[in-house]
């Protein structure tokens, strides 16, 4: 691995959102946004991507911190994962997100990594990361979905030429919490539901989110709907630190006594986007949150799944994680 300086880029360090948006508009695709840089620098160091300019957003104080808003909360996109893990309001009302943030990478990466960067990071398919000319990189084949392809980490749902999966741990929690993404551009702001923010290869194989060049994710809003609900987050990876999920589950249950009134079950690393398991969610409404219910509905999770050569294990793993989520582990 190369251990030298990254290739040259011009560095901009705006301290207001307006200045950052001006730069982003002026530089367009040449202006690489950086929050904590923990995903970006790997691309640049490995020379698999180049950029002539970097816009470092970390000095924009207004994009940082957690605020109570409309009975829900708003989290600035530049808030670090450690700040989210430690935030008293998030821990007491939306602990699902604190748990997910606390399972990202390593302590040092969480200290630097931002929520925006975690949500906008690119996929970890190693063929793509290694710089091959696969579909996602603009070429005309997928190296992972071949008889010899190393696809143990890849998708079991919703593949369309590309079988890469979402790498983000916080994304699944935010989809489960019905979060809203606030996206700013020079011409104004748009608000997109978390579930519509992430883009699968069937819609656009070259990108992971709806963010356009020139736009910046400024905040994530979490409505009051799931405040104080019962939560379960679990992530299975080869190592407990520094490792992306093989499968993870983010689950939320709104209860009426013993009975589940509404549920969200979202799995990570099974599709290119956070994967809502709606068949299980529907079956849970009106059921009791216990082991019997878990055993009955968990198998609905993998209907329609298509395993690749080396990831059949993801089907039972996903069912078991959902079973544990419903029982409360």
């Amino acid at each position, binding site marked *: 691995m190369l251990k030298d300086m990254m290739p*040259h*880029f*011009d*560095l901009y360090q705006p301290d207001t959102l307006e200045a950052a948006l001006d730069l982003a508009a002026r530089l367009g695709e040449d202006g690489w946004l950086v929050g904590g*840089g*923990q995903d970006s*620098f790997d691309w640049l160091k490995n020379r698999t991507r180049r950029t002539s300019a970097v816009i470092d957003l970390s000095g924009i104080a207004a994009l940082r911190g957690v605020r109570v808003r409309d009975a829900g909360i708003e989290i600035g996109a530049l808030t670090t994962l450690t700040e989210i893990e430690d935030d008293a309001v998030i821990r007491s009302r939306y602990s699902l997100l604190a748990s997910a943030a606390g399972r990202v990478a*390593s*302590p040092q990466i969480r200290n630097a990594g931002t929520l925006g960067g975690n949500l906008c990071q690119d996929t970890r398919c190693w063929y793509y990361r290694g710089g091959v000319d696969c579909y996602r990189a603009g070429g005309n084949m997928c190296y992972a979905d071949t008889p010899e392809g190393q696809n143990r980490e890849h998708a079991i749902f919703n593949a369309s030429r590309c079988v890469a999966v979402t790498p983000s741990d916080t994304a699944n929690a935010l989809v489960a919490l019905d979060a809203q993404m606030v996206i700013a551009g020079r011409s104004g702001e748009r608000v997109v539901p978390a579930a519509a923010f992430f883009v699968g290869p069937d819609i656009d194989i070259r990108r992971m989110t709806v963010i356009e060049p020139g736009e910046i994710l400024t905040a994530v809003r979490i409505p009051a709907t799931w405040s104080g609900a019962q939560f379960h987050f679990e992530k299975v990876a080869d190592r407990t630190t520094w490792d992306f999920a093989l499968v993870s589950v983010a689950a939320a249950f709104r209860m009426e006594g013993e009975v589940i009134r509404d549920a969200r079950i979202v799995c990570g690393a099974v599709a290119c986007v956070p994967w809502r398991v709606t068949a299980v969610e529907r079956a849970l409404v009106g059921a009791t949150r216990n082991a019997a219910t878990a055993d009955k509905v968990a198998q609905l999770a993998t209907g329609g799944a298509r395993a690749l050569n080396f990831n059949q294990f993801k089907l039972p793993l996903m069912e078991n994680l959902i079973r544990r989520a419903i029982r409360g582990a």
Partner: protein
Amino acid sequence: MSDLTVDAAAEARRLSRREFIKRVIASGAVASSASFVMGGLAGCAPARRQVSGAVERLVSINVNGQLRRVDVLPQETLAMTLRYKLGLTGTKLGCDRAECGACTVMIDGTTYYACSTLTHGVRGRKVVTVEGLRGPDGELHPVQQAFVDELGPQCGFCTPGQVVAAVALLQKNPKPSREEARHAMSGNLCRCGAYDNYLNAIMRAAGNLTEIHHGA
């Protein structure tokens, strides 16, 4: 041979190799090792035109309580600046990819991977490296002493990063449990597998002697 290299060779005979290299780098003199590292870097053409609004290259950064004036490329990481421009080679580069922790430093009391931090991002903040932990008379920091007492390091390559991570932990949580310490230290890899010794050392430094586990 230029005068500089002759002088440098004579100087090198007087000093240990390590001391010599450190001094040369710190003084900014263009001697072989420094120019190899800095001069041979791909893509960092000198004297590039500055586009309006982009960062100034000459900056002051606060490292170990001293304000250090240094010429920093826009794309330069803190690990590069510390090691190759400020002569602070205690900060190691293991992977250069945020995957090992050898480069761990504190910035305003929080740990970061210096290999994955832009130097221009630490202006106005306080950087502490392993060199900044020693006492006024050069004595070891209590955490360093505990690492020695518990036979922490084997090859020692990961040790500066481990020490910095441990000091940061104890500043935030002076009496961690062994489990809390394990969690806080989980971003520092040790290829020699000296994890238990390091945890013992942290328990010793925290005065939590009942949590020291010796023997298999």
